[in-house]
C-alpha cells in the first residue's frame, strides 16, 4: 500500500534474497548446503501456507491432513496415470483443498481450542483410510518409486529437476517466493485486513460488513491448497511416502513452531523461523550432539518465546507489524 522509505526489513529481505540467489555460484556443488536449504525453503513454504489460515485467529493442528492428502493424491496420480509431476502436484493441491472444503462445512462454527482439537482429530480420517485401503493406496507399505520432477527446458538449456540438487534448490526457492508473495499480498490487501479484523473481533467485523464465513472459508481453502501442493512436492522430491510420514503430527506442529518462532504477524515471519531453526538444527545441532540435538532446539524455542513473545522477527522488525 503506502510505501514509506526503504525500511531495514526491506533491505534485509533484499540482501537475503540476493544471497540465496547467488550463493550457489560460490559454493559450486556443496550438496549439504543444497539439501538443507531446499528443505528449509520447503518448511518455510509450509509454514507460510499454514500461517495464512492461522492469521484468522484459528490455530490448526491438522494441516498434516492436507499435506498427506496432497502427497498421496499426487503420488497415486503419478503412479497410476503417469502424468507429469507438475500436473500431479496441482492435483495434490486440489485434493487438499477438497478436504479443506469439508473442514469449512464441518468445523465452520468451531473456534479456539475446539477447532484445534477437531483439526487434530481430522488427520486420522484420511490416514486410517489410506492405511487400510491396501489395494489402491498400498496401505502401510507406502508408495515407493515416485517419479521425480521432469526436466525443464528453458531455451536450449535443459534443467534436470529430478537429479540436480541445485535445480531443486532453485525450484523450492521459487515456490517459497511465490507463497511468500501470496502471503504478503494476503496480509497487505483488503482481504488481509478483513482477516485481521475478524481475528481481533469477529462479531464487530461482521457488523462492519466483513463476510466472516466466506473470508474464513476461502482463506482455509487457499491454505489447504498450498499445503496440499507442498505435500505433492514432498512426494516427488522424496520419491516415497508412507501414512505415518506424511500424516505425522510433526508436519502439523512444525509450521506452528516455526511461525511462532519467526513472528506470526510478519510477512516473512514463518519463513524467518524456518531459515533460522531448520539449518541450525540440521547442520549444527545434529553434528554437535547426535543424541541431544533436540535439547538445544527446545532451549532455543523456550528462550526466544520468553523474550520475544511475538517471535524473533519482532526483534528484527520492532513492531513493524502490518503497515
Amino acid at each position: 500500500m503506502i510505501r514509506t522509505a526503504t525500511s531495514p526489513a526491506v533491505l534485509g529481505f533484499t540482501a537475503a534474497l540476493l544471497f540465496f540467489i547467488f550463493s550457489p555460484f560460490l559454493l559450486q556443488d556443496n550438496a549439504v548446503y543444497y539439501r538443507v536449504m531446499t528443505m528449509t525453503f520447503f518448511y518455510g513454504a509450509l509454514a507460510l501456507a499454514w500461517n495464512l489460515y492461522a492469521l484468522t485467529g484459528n490455530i490448526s493442528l491438522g494441516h498434516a491432513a492436507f499435506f498427506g492428502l496432497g502427497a498421496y493424491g499426487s503420488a497415486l496420480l503419478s503412479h497410476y496415470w503417469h502424468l507429469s509431476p507438475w500436473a500431479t502436484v496441482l492435483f495434490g493441491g486440489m485434493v487438499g483443498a477438497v478436504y479443506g472444503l469439508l473442514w469449512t462445512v464441518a468445523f465452520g462454527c468451531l473456534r479456539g481450542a475446539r477447532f484445534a482439537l477437531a483439526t487434530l482429530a481430522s488427520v486420522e480420517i484420511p490416514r486410517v483410510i489410506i492405511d487400510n485401503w491396501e489395494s489402491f493406496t498400498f496401505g502401510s507399505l507406502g508408495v515407493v518409486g515416485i517419479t521425480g520432477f521432469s526436466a525443464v527446458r528453458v531455451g536450449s538449456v535443459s534443467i534436470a529437476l529430478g537429479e540436480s540438487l541445485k535445480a531443486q534448490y532453485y525450484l523450492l526457492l521459487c515456490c517459497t517466493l511465490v507463497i511468500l508473495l501470496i502471503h504478503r499480498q494476503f496480509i497487505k490487501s483488503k482481504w488481509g485486513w478483513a482477516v485481521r479484523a475478524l481475528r481481533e473481533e469477529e462479531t464487530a467485523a461482521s457488523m462492519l460488513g466483513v463476510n466472516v464465513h466466506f473470508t474464513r472459508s476461502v482463506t482455509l481453502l487457499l491454505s489447504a491448497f498450498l499445503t496440499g501442493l507442498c505435500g505433492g512436492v514432498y512426494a516427488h522430491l522424496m520419491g516415497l511416502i508412507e501414512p505415518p510420514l506424511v500424516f505425522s503430527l510433526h508436519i502439523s506442529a512444525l509450521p506452528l513452531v516455526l511461525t511462532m518462532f519467526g513472528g506470526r504477524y510478519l510477512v516473512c515471519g514463518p519463513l524467518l523461523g524456518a531459515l533460522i531453526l531448520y539449518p541450525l538444527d540440521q547442520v549444527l545441532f545434529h553434528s554437535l550432539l547426535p543424541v541431544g540435538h533436540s535439547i538445544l532446539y527446545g532451549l532455543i524455542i523456550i528462550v526466544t518465546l520468553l523474550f520475544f513473545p511475538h517471535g524473533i522477527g519482532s526483534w528484527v522488525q520492532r513492531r513493524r507489524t502490518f503497515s
Partner: protein
Amino acid sequence: MVILQLIINAFSLGSFYALVALGFALIFGVTHAFNLAHGELILLGGYLAYTLAGQMQVPFLGTLPVTALAMVIIAILLQKLLRRVGQPYELNTLVVTFGLALVLQNTMLMLFSADYRIIQSAAPAIELPYTQLLLTRTQVILIGTSLLATTALYILLRKTFLGKALRATIQDREAAKLAGINVRRMSLVGFAIGGALIGLAGPLYARTTYLYPSGGTEASLIAIIITIFAGVGRIRGILLGGWALGIAESTTVYALGTGWRELVSALVLISLLLLKPQGILSRKPKAARLPG
C-alpha cells in the same frame, strides 16, 4: 459374557485416559496454560516410581504420594517459568512447552536410556464370582484411583472455599479478578493440584503401559483430547469422556478390527465437538453464550 468383559476392559481403559487427563485439564482450566509437556511430566513421575519400586522396593501404592509430592514441586517450577510468557498466553505456552517437552524427552533419554520400562504386577486377575468375568489388579487400581481422584477434585471444587475461588477463575478470569480473587495465587494452586494429579498418573502410566523417553506425546494427546472432549473445567466430564473414548475404541477393535481404532475415536471426537461444543455434559446450546 464377552460383551460384559469388553465393557469392564473399556471402563478400565477409559479410567486410564481420565487419569492421564486430569492434571492437564485442571491446569488448563485455571491458568489457560496449554501444557504440551504434560506427557513428559507424567513419564517423569513414572520413572520416579519405577526407580522407587525397583531399587528401594517401595510397594506400588507407596510410590504414589512420593511422586505426587515431587510433581507438585516440578509443577510449581513450571508455573514460575510460564508466568513469564507473554500474550497470547495459550498459544505462547503451547510453543514454550513444546520446547520444554523436547528438552525433557532428551534429558530422560540420557538419564534413563531408551529402554522400555514397565512396573510389573505379578498378581493374577480376580475372577468375579458366578461369572467368568476377570478383573485384574491394575484394572481395580485404575478404576479406583480415577474415581477417587475425580471425586476428591469434585468435592474440592464444589464444597471448599478454595475450590469456589478456583472454579470462579476457571469460568471467568476477569470476573474472578473483579471479585477480589487473587488470580495469580489461584494459578499457583492450580498448577500445584495439577502437579499432584500428574504425580498420581505417572506410576499408573508405568504400570498400565510402559515408559520410554519419547512416549510423552501420546499421553499429552490423550490429555488434550479428553479435556476438550469433557469441556474445560468439568471434572466429572473428564471421567465420562475417558469412558466414552474407552468404550468407542474397545468396541471398534472388537467389531471392526484393530486398524480402525484411531479412525473411530477421531470420528467420535469430531462429532462430539460439533454436537456438544461445550463438552460432553453440557446442556445449553452455544447460542446461550451471547449476552442476553
